[in-house]
């Protein structure tokens, strides 16, 4: 506990001086016949020096006067009178006075220094204990609890911590584990303290307050306020205030360090989870596709081997179409996972949208066989900077979507045109269209229109959005005035480097 040693009252010290004087005088009366009255002065001098080791300046002066008077009255001839006879004795009296005072002063200074040293040692010790206590703390909450305990024990006081609330700009709020529940005016003081570093009892600001408030800061902006409320009889001196400020600074440093450590841990976790996600994605992709490849290869080999009955032939075709479908689902899941984990890294290059569309339609093969697909591409469309395969997958998803949700035999129209600085590719169908309240959420992951027919994963449109936005484009869904839904992909048009005739 850090208490300045309780000051013995001055009266006690004066009494002590008087008592020592009385005791030494008696001793001297007994000694005088053997050593003579001159040496008696030395015994008194010794007593004064010893006294100076234990008492303050006032009592020392008091003791010096007492002993000097005692010597002159009781021992210096003529005895039992204030009068000193010989010049030699007068000089001795004066010298005694000077020497006693000087020695006493020196001793007192020594003692004061020792006291100060002791105090600073106590302060360092308290600070050391405080630091050590915080050093092996686990996490921010633990740090704060330890601060409260340690400060409370050191100052024998109730302690409150005020910390910034989570939302920026909010006021400080009381840390729940505080042992001192602040009332409103006390909170107000602590809010003020944020700016003036220290406030409350024993400071310039709000000196009448119950507690002492110190901002938690290590030079930067305050991280909170430490408030202590010692019992009323304890005097808060500047040493204590300084110690409390040291505690506050130390707390701020530890909190700061903890925050850095937390940030580092977070970053590492993020990196690790990203790596984990990537590894998982790769291994899932491998583990799902390899058996799929095996199934489809086996079915195809079976079918091509000949000698199958028509029924068996049909079964192997079923296996084939089921694996194709499953493969699409796996593909969608992996794409969605890539989008979700932010691992879509488009490989941008110049692309001809008609080329992309051609590849898309070829890749879909029989999936659009039941619909009439019309293409209308504005002549002279510019090249776009895009990732060919990502645009292709986005378009494929839109087309499969249209084919899935519209009746067989209806038209699916694909148009591409330039609109200002954007190239727009639209896939429009002649199906039932979209419910107006669904349009906004239709591109959300796993969003499925209520009442829509079964089938589909709810991933397709989210993938379209994810892939297109990753390349700096945007998507839009709307109902066509003539009926049916229309999905548009907007890609930014950058001026392609000039291609001169027969260039290079």
């Amino acid at each position: 506990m850090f208490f300045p040693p309780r000051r013995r009252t001055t009266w006690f010290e004066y009494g002590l001086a008087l008592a020592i004087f009385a005791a030494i005088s008696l001793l001297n009366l007994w000694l005088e016949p053997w050593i003579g009255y001159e040496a008696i002065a030395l015994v008194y001098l010794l007593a004064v020096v010893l006294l100076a080791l234990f008492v303050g300046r006032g009592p020392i002066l008091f003791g010096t006067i007492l002993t000097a008077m005692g010597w002159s009255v009781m021992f210096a001839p003529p005895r039992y009178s204030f009068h000193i006879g010989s010049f030699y004795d007068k000089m001795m009296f004066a010298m005694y006075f000077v020497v006693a005072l000087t020695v006493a002063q020196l001793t007192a200074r020594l003692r004061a220094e020792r006291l100060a040293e002791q105090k600073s040692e106590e302060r360092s010790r308290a600070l050391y204990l405080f630091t050590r206590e915080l050093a092996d703390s686990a996490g921010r909450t633990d740090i704060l609890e330890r601060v409260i305990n340690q400060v409370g024990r050191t100052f024998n006081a109730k302690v409150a911590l005020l910390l910034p609330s989570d939302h920026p700009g909010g006021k400080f709020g009381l840390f729940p584990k505080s042992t001192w529940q602040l009332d409103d005016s006390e909170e107000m003081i602590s809010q003020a303290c944020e700016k003036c570093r220290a406030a409350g009892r024993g400071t310039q600001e709000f000196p009448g307050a119950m507690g002492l408030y110190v901002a938690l800061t290590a030079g930067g902006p305050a991280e909170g306020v430490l408030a202590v409320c010692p019992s009323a009889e304890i005097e808060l001196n500047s040493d204590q205030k300084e110690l409390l400020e040291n505690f506050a600074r130390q707390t701020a440093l530890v909190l700061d360090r903890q925050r850095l450590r937390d940030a580092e841990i977070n970053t590492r976790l993020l990196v690790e989870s990203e790596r984990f996600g990537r590894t998982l994605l790769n291994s899932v992709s491998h583990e799902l596709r390899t058996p799929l490849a095996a199934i489809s290869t086996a079915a195809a080999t079976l079918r091509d081997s000949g000698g199958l009955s028509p029924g068996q032939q049909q079964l192997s075709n079923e296996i084939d179409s089921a694996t194709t479908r499953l493969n699409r689902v796996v593909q969608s899941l992996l794409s969605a996972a890539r989008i979700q984990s932010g691992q879509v890294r488009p490989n941008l290059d110049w692309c001809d949208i008609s080329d992309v569309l051609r590849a898309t339609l070829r890749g879909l093969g029989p999936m659009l066989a039941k619909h009439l697909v019309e293409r209308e591409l504005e002549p002279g469309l510019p090249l776009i900077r895009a990732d060919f395969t990502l645009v292709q997958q986005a378009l494929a998803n839109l087309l499969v979507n249209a084919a899935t949700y519209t009746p067989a035999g209806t038209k699916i129209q694909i148009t591409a045109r330039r609109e200002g600085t954007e190239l727009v590719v639209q896939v429009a169908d002649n199906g039932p269209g979209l419910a107006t309240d669904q349009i906004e959420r239709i591109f959300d992951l796993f969003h499925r229109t209520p009442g829509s027919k079964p089938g589909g994963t709810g991933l397709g449109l989210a993938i379209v959005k994810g892939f297109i936005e990753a390349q700096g484009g945007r998507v839009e869904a709307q109902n066509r005035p003539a009926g049916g839904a229309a999905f548009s992909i907007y890609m930014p048009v950058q001026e392609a480097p000039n291609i001169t005739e027969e260039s290079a």
Partner: protein
Amino acid sequence: MNVENRPIPLSVLVIDDETQMQRLLTIALEAAGYLVTTAGSGQDGLRTIAYHRHDLVILDLGLPDISGLLVLKQLREWSQTPVIILTVHDAEAEKVEALDTGADDYVTKPFNTSELLARVRASIRRANQGQSREPVFCQGDLKVDLTARRVMLQGEPVKLTAKEYALLRLFILHAGKVLTHRQILREVWGAGHENDTQYLRVYLMRLREKLELNPAAAPLFLTEPGVGYRLAEGGA
């Protein structure tokens, strides 16, 4: 084409660490008349090729010991045996790198067996015919006489610019084979233009406009998304 009738069957080496894929590929290839050897790792595969001559290698890029790309690189230092790589979807960069390293073709897993067999046949045939080519290329309505530099569509001459013709000629010389953007750009426009994909896109658009007049007919130039282009070939 009639592999079955050859006195000595063509041999194919399958390098894949998945035993299931090994078995299935073996069954499919043996059913088509090939002699199949398998290797479960890259090192194993390289050793096998060093000791026995093979007509074709099917190489999975995801091998446990050394990457398929490294196997390909090492193999290409001393052998011109055609290589078809097995890869997965989404791995365009990997495909391009393998093709630029010297792979002859690629198949994406899960693949269609007839597609794989067609690629195998085409790769072996291209490797055997070497540089010697028929001077006249015919495909659908298109007829190109490489010696006379004459391009005919439905019997009508087509006027091509020098670059357009150079591009078409490159495709014809490698008919059926996938060519990466980089390979085409280097051959037609020179090494300094390997990344100028825009040239290729524009010239391909023009070639298509001039040569693919009938939208109902099978396309001549096939786009390999994210990888390059391939000229359709009668048999493939």
